[in-house]
């Protein structure tokens, strides 16, 4: 296995507030990593810095052997990093089919040397993407007709339509029922089985433990632990961060 994502010495400030402080993170190809931490610990900021939504002041993000410094979000998506947003951000005036069409047009078809899709092939791929998350029947509807879980699935379908090497799922299960959480976990594990590396950010510990092969813990912008899930949850420092002294 080779390293797919390498984050080194990452630092990000918002004014005087240090959101991330010297974060180191390595993710291997094909791995399922769980990223946890209390609210405000910098998880989403880390995701935003990896994806290029925010610019980090210190440190580097290296993806598939290439430094991503200075690249904008869409350039990183084209290199193979896809994400879902914590609060679903669908394209509201477009149908579900068109929602997944955009990453195909702008990512899959914009990659150099990649296979470019045309006309019917794009259409077929859009349907396939919605099929994968079980939204095929609603292909022509608008996002506002969807339920919460369907909205999360659309986020995942849109991220997957970009045919990424790395998928970052930012709290896709928040607010979902027990059965729905299981459904999403199964979906993520299936995607991982197809060769996609997955970073899952989550508060629902049951989901994290079930999904992750490795856990990394962020507290107040610092990574305090990284290792086997069963060891991490017993780590006194992690317990203290979550439960206090």
């Amino acid at each position, binding site marked *: 296995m080779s390293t797919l994502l390498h984050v080194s010495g990452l630092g990000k400030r918002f004014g005087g507030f240090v959101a991330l402080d010297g974060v180191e993170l390595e993710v291997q190809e094909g791995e399922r990593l769980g990223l946890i931490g209390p609210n405000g610990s910098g998880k989403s900021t880390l995701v935003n810095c990896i*994806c*290029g*939504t925010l610019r980090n002041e210190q440190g580097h993000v290296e993806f598939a052997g290439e430094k991503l410094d200075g690249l*904008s*979000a*869409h*350039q990183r*998506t*084209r290199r193979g990093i*896809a*994400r879902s*947003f914590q609060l679903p*951000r*669908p*394209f*509201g*005036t*477009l*149908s579900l*089919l*068109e929602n997944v*069409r*955009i*990453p195909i*047009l*702008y*990512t899959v*078809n*914009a990659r150099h040397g990649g296979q470019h899709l045309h006309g019917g092939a794009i259409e077929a791929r859009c349907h396939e993407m919605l099929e994968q998350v079980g939204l095929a029947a609603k292909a*022509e509807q608008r996002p506002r007709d969807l339920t919460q879980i369907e909205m999360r699935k659309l986020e995942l379908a*849109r*991220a997957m*339509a*970009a045919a990424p090497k790395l998928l970052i799922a930012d709290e896709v299960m928040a607010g979902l029922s027990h059965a729905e959480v299981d459904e999403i976990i199964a979906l993520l594990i299936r995607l991982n089985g197809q060769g996609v590396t997955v970073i899952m950010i989550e508060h629902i510990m049951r989901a994290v433990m079930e999904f992750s092969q490795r856990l990394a813990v962020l507290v107040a912008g610092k990574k305090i632990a990284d290792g086997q899930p069963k060891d991490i949850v017993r780590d006194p420092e992690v317990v203290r961060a979550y439960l206090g002294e």
Partner: protein
Amino acid sequence: MVSLADKPIPTGHATGIGQLPFAAALIAIAIALFLAGRLLGNSYAFFAGYVVVQYIVLGTAWNILGGYTGYVNFGITAFFAIGAYSSVVWHKLTPGMPLPVMVVIGGVLAALVGLGTGYLTLRLRGVFFSIATLALAVVVQTLITNWDFVGGARGAYVIRPRVAPLIGGDYIQYLCLIMLGLCVIVLVTARAIERSALGYGFAAIRDDEAAAEAAGVPTLRLKLIATALSGGFMGMAGAPLPYYVTYLDPSSGFSLNYAVNAIAMPLIGGTSNWLGPVIGGVLVGGLQEYIRVTISSAANVLVAGLLLVIFVIIAPQGIVGLFEARRRRRR
């Protein structure tokens, strides 16, 4: 039983005839309108027709940025007047230059200004972008007002030839024909954008810019394309203006009417596709011309404002939106 709901519903983008038949149909309509005007033999018909068609062009141009990408541009008069004053300059420098060439030059200049302002202002979102475009209109107007060569605040006289080149007859017929041709080009472009990857990218930007970036859409580049196209077409619409009015001064070239109408027409007709600005242009422009003649030349200003208020309340998606909603309900 097979109902309508069972059928795959074509999404707005992929329905209807191809690009070439569409362009051919538009050209046929434009020629038919022009010939009808000639048969009528009434030069007022051409004067009124010119204004309506000009508004369709302006409205469609505005819609490429405002409707498709969701960036509201209030600086319409800046682009429009750049086209108009570029013609004044060429008229003075090389009086023999054919009008279509002036239209192209005016368009290119306005597109460049659009590109420049876009680069400086498109990092601003929502209302802040709109305010910046408003400032652009003021800046350009101030520059023109203080530029003596094009008449400054006094204005410039542009004497139009008595007879139209190529087609003969009154010169206004020639102006009208050029505006019709421009209208065909703009509408074909707008419709082509809607159906292309560009159109999907614009729509993604309009709906959620961060999500668009995450989906691989190069948002800044697309917004620059939209601003340049939109500004360029506005400049082209303005280029024949000096020949139409024969006397152009800053207060008429930068008249608020152009800005209000160019925004009101797509909003009334519908911003989601190319047909909206056409419906809005014909409806509002036609009504204005009618009222200008029958009631008063001041009352026509009221039309756009009143219709806009009515439509914002009863049909915020415009006339096209009204029909689309009905069609969707029927399914």
